[in-house]
């Protein structure tokens, strides 16, 4: 039987903050990551935990002007079913649909994906490509962290021990396109070998505000800024696609691990980017 760590079950966010102010507690939301750890088979199980599942303050998807806000407890199923998400960030819906299968999507949360800080977290490249912000908070108040600064090292975030992820804010600039692509061993239940999100605005004379974000190719989700510069100001032509793909293969430094090899990841990342540019160019 798995260990059964001590658990606090706050009814309100303020209660949760008060508990976290007394001592660090490992949060559990949908449980799809942390429940695997209480078996103790893949490392020490957490000692003290705090259950966030009933904190209604952390639920809900809201469109406010040109910002979409998703509560930390928004599940992947919530995202897939949300008309607002489908209209404004279909790439996030695409990402949610690739995570696990129905059982995982019904429990796993966006806040959990963000806080768990896996380099393979499938929504994370979408958040990077859309210039999202992570709103975190605790008894000392709230603060907003740009997503580019949130994952600071392998599985490490900018969260203080007494803070929780509260919401994710996604700005929705006019005319922005975002595409998502995941490469795994199978369509469902796969952890990514390479996962990618590409965003741009097309003013007619070339792409601007290009964002290219990848997972599973570094110790954390990253932006490929050299490749972004190779795409900035360009039209999605064959020449652009070739140059961007070559640049990306030279820019990323993935590793060999149980799921894939460095060589495979470079080739596939380049190929996926090439195809995204080609699709955008319609050639």
């Amino acid at each position: 039987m798995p260990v059964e760590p001590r658990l606090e079950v706050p009814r309100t966010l303020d209660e949760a903050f008060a508990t976290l102010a007394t001592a660090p507690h490992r949060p559990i939301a949908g449980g799809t990551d942390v429940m695997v750890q209480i078996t103790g088979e893949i490392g020490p199980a957490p000692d003290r935990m705090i259950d966030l599942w009933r904190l209604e303050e952390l639920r809900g998807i809201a469109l406010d002007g040109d910002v979409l806000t998703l509560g930390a407890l928004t599940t992947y199923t919530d995202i897939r079913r949300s008309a607002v998400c489908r209209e404004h960030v279909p790439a996030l819906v695409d990402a949610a649909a690739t995570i696990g299968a129905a059982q995982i999507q019904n429990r796993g949360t966006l806040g959990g994906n963000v806080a768990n800080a896996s380099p393979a977290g499938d929504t994370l490249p979408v958040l990077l490509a859309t210039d999202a912000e992570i709103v975190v908070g605790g008894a000392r108040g709230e603060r907003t962290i740009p997503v580019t600064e949130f994952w600071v090292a392998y599985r490490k975030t900018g969260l203080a021990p007494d803070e929780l992820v509260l919401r994710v804010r996604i700005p929705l600039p006019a005319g922005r396109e975002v595409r998502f692509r995941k490469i795994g061993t199978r369509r469902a239940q796969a952890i990514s070998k390479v996962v990618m999100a590409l965003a741009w605005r097309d003013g007619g004379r070339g792409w601007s505000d290009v964002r290219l974000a990848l997972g599973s190719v570094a110790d954390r989700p990253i932006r490929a800024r050299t490749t972004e510069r190779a795409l900035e100001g360009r039209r999605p032509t064959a020449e652009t696609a070739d140059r961007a793909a070559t640049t990306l293969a030279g820019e990323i430094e993935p590793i060999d691990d149980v799921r894939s090899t460095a060589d495979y990841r470079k080739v596939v990342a380049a190929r996926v980017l090439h195809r995204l540019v080609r699709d955008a160019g319609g050639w």
Partner: protein
Amino acid sequence: MNIRLLVNGSPVELDVPGMRRLLDVLREDLGLTGTKEGCGEGECGACSVILDGQVVDACLVPMSQVDGSTVRTVEGLARRPARSPDRRLDELQAAFLATGGAQCGICTPGMLMAARAYIDAGGGPDEDAIREAIAGNLCRCTGYTKIVEAIAQAATPQAEV
């Protein structure tokens, strides 16, 4: 932690650690061993149950999150029609029998519950949709063909005979 929930229509009250897995409560505390443990990490779906209308892996749900909830397990599929002494198989169970959708049987309870949630949510006999609905359930015997056939059969609106 004091937890109250409905399991297959019957009220249950338990005093258990909040982090105990729903799977362990079903199997150990309630003796409902139809729900199987395969991988214990959300990969195989053998422990699939329906929690408040959604299919979940019972190995990934702590008891603290089911207080006040409704759980349906494979034992709750067959029902007794009014004025009948015997329980009648759910149409999915009947279809699995008819098509040969089970071999060793370990995945079957989870397959049935994932399929039940799919049909309850309005899912039809479309093969791609069925394959997506059971993508979180691994079977190492059948090759899935008979399972998909069974679900399609149960999901097909019955013509009046």
